[in-house]
């Protein structure tokens, strides 16, 4: 089966398998990347991309997986990130990781400094050398600039430059566009293309088909831990790529949708709303759009990351500014423009960022659940411990939070159970409108099913739900309707039907 390496490949990963206990993360994965190619690696969340990259980066050391890795014809055993580096693999992680108090040149030279040990640092000469290196590779950065003063995309580019400086045989970019605007993506692409001209080999990880079509010479698609499709640029076809990326059976993960009552009232209506871009004050995030949400309805907001979905929720919650348009509650009432007004109006927002915005990490399940209803639970400013405990216990039980001990610390819970507590916390203030932003992000499959059931129960009881999710099958399976945004525009509406994923994907990348 295994072909002999002939020197035409910069990187070969063959028969890679990895299990986490009973869970198979990767099964017999073969990845071959030709010299000088930009190779796309795509797959949905959980397809195994990050596991594969962690193997390649030495994060999962050799011995913890099966299969072999060959870099430029040489069999390598990667026991640590350092080994990977020395073998010529440079991985640019998705998160921005730069040393802000150092200059651009110093960041790029860091790997070099490490090798040199205690040597005089001739700043002027080094700056000059890096200036030349940057110019040679078409990278628009100034070597003496302090990194703290760079913009986010500049930092992203700096990370690529640092990786490049190690003169790698394979450069791996892990979802480099996830936090960039279209213009910035253009700059990034031209840099990557320029590297190709210089003879570099690049692995480009993404879940955006359009980027593959635009940039890559070849592609591998990972799904459920296996390579299900690979081809060259000459055979690129976005429909084939999408269907190969998705194509999974859904099983009984999702609850049966409730039927919205014919006389169900509208609980929220949005007319010609223009949301401000929180990163560019005064500018709009999206063109004007309108929609209505009825009691008992789950309305999905579809689109790619960065399409403005979260900003819409935050605008409704009054965390983001609105430039124009009208937001009305069911009875035609409007509410004030501060977060407490939104809460009073019966709007609950369950944030994507559990760690930063949602939970009190040093507190118990009980403390987190009852944090928003302290006033209700207090008499003359003194907390009624007993009723607090009862309510916390009841809520925790109804959401089947594990562990069942309400005095357990939130920080020790799994992601799924943290999410349940977060929902429970909002539940207790009895809102009319729930806004859920990526409620199953980083959550295991069993907890996902439970969270879907909780959302289902919410609408059964008459609440309206706005749902944001990057997992399209989930969004379609849960929502009654999905409205889609792309390229700063409202694209249209579709019925929530799990078989329409292809359509949704096309709409989300801005149509054909």
């Amino acid at each position, binding site marked *: 089966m295994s072909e002999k390496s002939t020197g035409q490949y910069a990187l070969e990963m063959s028969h890679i398998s990895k299990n986490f206990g009973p869970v198979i993360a990767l099964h017999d994965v073969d990845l071959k990347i030709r010299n000088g190619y930009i190779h796309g690696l795509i797959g949905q969340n959980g397809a195994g991309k990050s596991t594969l990259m962690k193997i390649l980066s030495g994060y999962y050391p050799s011995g913890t997986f099966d299969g072999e890795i060959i870099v430029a014809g040489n069999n390598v055993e990667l026991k640590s*990130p*350092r080994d990977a*580096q020395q073998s010529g693999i440079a*991985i640019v*992680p998705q*998160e921005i*990781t*730069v*040393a*802000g*108090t*150092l*200059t651009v040149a*110093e*960041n790029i*030279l*860091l*790997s*070099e*400094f*490490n*090798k*040199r*040990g*205690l*040597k*005089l*640092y001739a*700043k002027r000469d080094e*700056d000059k050398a890096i200036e030349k290196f940057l110019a040679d590779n078409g990278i628009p950065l100034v070597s*003496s600039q*302090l990194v*703290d003063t760079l913009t986010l995309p500049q930092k992203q580019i700096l990370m690529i430059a*640092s990786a490049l400086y190690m003169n790698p045989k394979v450069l791996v970019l892990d979802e480099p566009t996830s936090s960039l605007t279209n213009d910035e993506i253009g700059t990034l692409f031209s840099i990557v293309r320029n590297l190709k001209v210089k003879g570099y080999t690049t692995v480009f990880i993404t879940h955006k088909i359009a980027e593959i079509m635009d940039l890559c010479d070849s592609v591998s698609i990972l799904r459920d831990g296996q390579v299900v499709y690979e081809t060259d640029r000459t055979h690129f076809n976005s429909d084939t790529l999408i269907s190969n990326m998705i194509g999974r059976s859904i099983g009984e993960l999702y609850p049966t949708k409730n039927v919205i009552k014919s006389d169900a009232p509208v609980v929220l209506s949005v007319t010609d709303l223009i949301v401000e871009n929180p990163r560019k004050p005064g500018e709009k995030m999206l063109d004007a759009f309108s929609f209505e949400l009825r009691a008992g309805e789950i309305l999905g907001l579809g689109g790619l990351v960065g399409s403005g979905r979260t900003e819409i929720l935050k605008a409704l919650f009054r965390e983001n500014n609105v430039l124009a348009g009208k937001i009305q509650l069911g009875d035609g009432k409007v509410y004030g423009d501060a977060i407490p007004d939104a809460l009073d109006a019966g709007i609950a927002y369950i944030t994507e960022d559990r760690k930063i915005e949602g939970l009190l990490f040093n507190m118990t399940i009980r403390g987190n659940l009852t944090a928003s209803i302290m006033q209700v639970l207090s008499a003359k400013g003194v907390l009624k411990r007993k009723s607090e405990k009862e309510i916390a216990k009841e809520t925790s039980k109804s959401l089947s939070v594990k562990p069942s001990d309400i005095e357990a610390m939130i920080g020790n819970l799994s992601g799924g159970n943290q999410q349940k507590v977060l929902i429970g916390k909002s539940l207790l203030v009895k809102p009319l409108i729930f806004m859920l932003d990526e409620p199953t992000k980083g959550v295991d499959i069993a907890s996902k099913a439970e969270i879907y059931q909780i959302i289902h129960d919410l609408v059964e009881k008459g609440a309206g739900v706005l749902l944001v999710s990057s997992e399209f099958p989930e969004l379609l399976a849960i929502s009654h309707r999905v409205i889609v945004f792309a390229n700063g525009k409202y694209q249209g509406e579709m019925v929530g039907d799990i078989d329409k994923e292809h359509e949704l994907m096309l709409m989300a990348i801005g149509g054909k």
Partner: protein
Amino acid sequence: MKSLRISPIGKRVIFVFIIFGAFALLKNSFATYDSILSIVQGIAFVGIASAFLTLLITSGEFDISIGANAALAAIVAGELVAKSHLSLWLSIFLTLLVGLVIGAINGAVVLIAKVPSFIATIAMLFIARSFSVYISQAKAIENFPGLWKGFKGSVMGQYFSIIVMLVVILIGEFILNYTTFGKVIAAIGANKEAARIAGINVIRTKFILFMLTGVGAALAGVVADIHFSSARSSLGTGWELYAIAGLVIGGTSLFGGRGTVVGLLIGLLLMQIIASGMVAGGIDPWWQTVITGVIVLISLGIDRKRKKVFVNE
């Protein structure tokens, strides 16, 4: 870029001169050679003990035990020289080794057992201080022989501790801001993950810095012995607080990523000038600590652009 690095130090030097000038106007004898010498002398030991601490703090760790470590070193050196009659150089060597071991223990507890450095080194502060009291039985060790004793009162003896401080501070500043290793230290303090990606062994580097800090503290103890020709277990009480105040005034970020040992020197000098000036001017010494506190706060505002540095990311 040059102006970015030099100017905060420049501002602070000017500030020191203004404060000094003000006291000199208040009291003429303040600007005499003897007075200046005694001011610099006053910060020599804490300066030696905290020079390498600056490097450790720039890497994002802390060592609260420097004063206690110095006291233990002073007592150990005293015991070796005055009671066990070992040779001068051997005694110094063994004492610095004790400092190194204390630094290594701090490093191991923080980096291997993953105890936050603030807590680990507070524990070491108590342990080292107690050992120094126990070994000396809380009595001063006197009767230093030979060269050791000969320093007292000599011209060399007068300048010895100042010279050592300047040398140590210049070495520290050179390593931190003029070498590749210094950049590695700052990178670790600025973003550990970024350093790791560049192939830097973060734990090893921090371990080295813990040991270096330990040696620096022990050196302060030895130099104090030589200067006073006696060893006391009370040496170094409160040094950690002066060091932290001096670092903050000098412009080092307590969260790591940026440090300056020369800044530390300026910060310590400023505090000492105020202390001495108050005494010389006959002002209630109670005000001295109040003013020191105010200066610490003011120094945070001196270069507001750096405000970000004081926010833990």
